[in-house]
């Protein structure tokens, strides 16, 4: 049943990048502000209309980024009355959509702004690595665990051992994703890619090759949410937030309950799809976090698109490529479009663009329902959002 306070997305924006770096000269907070402004103005709102502010980031940590919403609120010179700085890694923004949806339904805010920005490529830094050897990390960091790729490599190795998954299966994902990137003028890597190219690329952390790994780029994105009622007066066609779920299990990879099964995705996916009242066959387009090729395989299995252990078969034959039976990561993903540290924001933006029907050469025909799933940490957290053309 429709309700005036049903949550919808009315604004999206992302910053232009070239060769993985921001085009515009601005600080990391400057880029956050520019995309925030673009997203609210697209909807016919202003930053002064924003009363809910949600963000997560690695900027200035330790330092201002530890109080991320406070720092960004100051920069924007706004006084939000609902804030959420939930940081569960790259899936944070899917969780933010869920939290903003609840706040909107509850009448706790009217216009929620979700923002992310990172200039890690320009800074030539990647804050995810080198975890200090304290608390649970004292039992991992001293052994030289490559972070985060080593944890994903261990999951891949275990999946191969239990189910016979191959490096070729994983490479199929990278190749299909590159084909989508070739249809997206904004994607960073658009040169042709073959399974052999992936398999012959530098081995980073066995069994994962360089081309099994996402890019390292800059990037900034913003999403504006409000209620269905308020959206009637706005300039954009709203995208409805129909369902959501979130879960996490561990921080240290050694504590992952089962290296070959992504329990947070299973839990979050079930919750979101039940809330939305949709089944797998209702989903027209899928945007899932591809920090590494194995992330995608584990996620598709956990979300129930195929059985546990059958992910390798599921993605073979370029099933997820343009023209394939299962359109996935249609902007070129973290593997080929952009990956500014916490990529989940850009999954949401691409899903909204597909549902708006503005994707040009890469448009999935008749896309009405999208599933977005973010993964954060080292296969630590998962958050799912079901979006629908209103």
């Amino acid at each position, binding site marked *: 049943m429709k309700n005036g306070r049903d949550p919808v997305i009315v604004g999206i924006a992302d910053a232009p990048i070239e060769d993985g770096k921001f085009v515009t000269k601005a600080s990391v907070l400057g880029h956050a502000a520019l995309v925030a402004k673009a997203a609210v103005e697209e909807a016919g709102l202003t930053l002064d209309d924003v009363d809910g502010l949600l963000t997560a980031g690695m900027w200035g940590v330790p330092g201002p980024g530890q109080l991320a919403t406070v720092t960004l609120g100051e920069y924007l010179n706004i006084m939000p009355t609902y804030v959420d700085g939930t940081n569960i890694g790259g899936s944070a923004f899917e969780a933010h959509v869920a939290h903003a949806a609840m706040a909107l339904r509850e009448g706790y805010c009217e216009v929620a702004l979700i923002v992310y920005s990172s200039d890690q490529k320009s800074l030539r830094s990647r804050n995810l690595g080198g975890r200090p050897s304290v608390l649970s990390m004292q039992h991992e960091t001293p052994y*030289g665990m490559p972070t985060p790729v080593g944890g994903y490599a261990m999951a891949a190795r275990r999946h191969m051992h239990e189910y016979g998954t191959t490096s070729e299966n994983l490479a199929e994902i990278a190749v299909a994703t590159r084909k989508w990137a070739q249809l997206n003028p904004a994607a960073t890597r658009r040169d042709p890619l073959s399974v052999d190219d992936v398999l012959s690329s530098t081995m980073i952390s066995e069994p*994962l090759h360089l081309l099994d790994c996402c890019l390292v780029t800059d990037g900034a994105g913003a999403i504006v949410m409000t209620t269905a009622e308020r959206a009637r007066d706005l300039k954009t066609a709203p995208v409805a937030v129909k369902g959501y779920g979130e879960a996490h299990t561990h921080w240290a990879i050694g504590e992952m309950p089962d290296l070959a099964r992504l329990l947070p995705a299973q839990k979050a996916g079930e919750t979101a799809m039940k809330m939305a009242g949709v089944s797998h066959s209702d989903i027209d387009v899928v945007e899932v976090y591809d920090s590494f090729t194995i992330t995608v395989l584990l996620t598709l299995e956990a979300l129930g698109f195929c059985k546990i252990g059958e992910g390798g078969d599921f993605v073979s034959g370029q099933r997820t490529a343009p023209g394939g039976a299962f359109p996935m990561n249609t902007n070129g993903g973290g593997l080929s479009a952009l990956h500014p540290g916490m990529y989940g924001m850009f999954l949401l933006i691409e899903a909204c663009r597909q549902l708006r029907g503005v994707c040009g050469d890469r448009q999935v025909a008749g896309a009405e329902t999208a599933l977005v799933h973010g993964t954060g940490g080292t296969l630590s957290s998962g958050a799912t959002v079901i979006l629908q053309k209103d």
Partner: protein
Amino acid sequence: MSPEKPLPVIDHDSAPYWEAAQEGRLDIPLCGDCGKHHFYPRAICPHCHSDNLRFDTVSGRGEVHSFTIARRPAGPAFADDVPYVVALIELEEGPRMMSRIQTDDPEKVHIGARVEVTFVKASDEIAHPYFRMT
């Protein structure tokens, strides 16, 4: 000169574990209520949430649950070690712990390989439990 490798920052939960390691023993917490071991050491049992815990010397034997061969180091401190094997070891007593496999031939490491603990001195306070294939 390459930077020094990170050493564990010992806390009240982990102190008995690191003290035992320095003396060549693998001591991990055992729950007096549910009877299960756990790792890493915590103030409450992650299985039943009891705080009735004591440290117990375990066999030091187990098997490789999963592993990766690092072809690129986790930072400059580990550059001289490449290639090296980081492995998740499943102890005979049940818990899993992250460690290194000491081997001249990383290609021989496989899931299910039987391993045994060996302690490698890292500082005056720290000896790391590494594992060797048996």
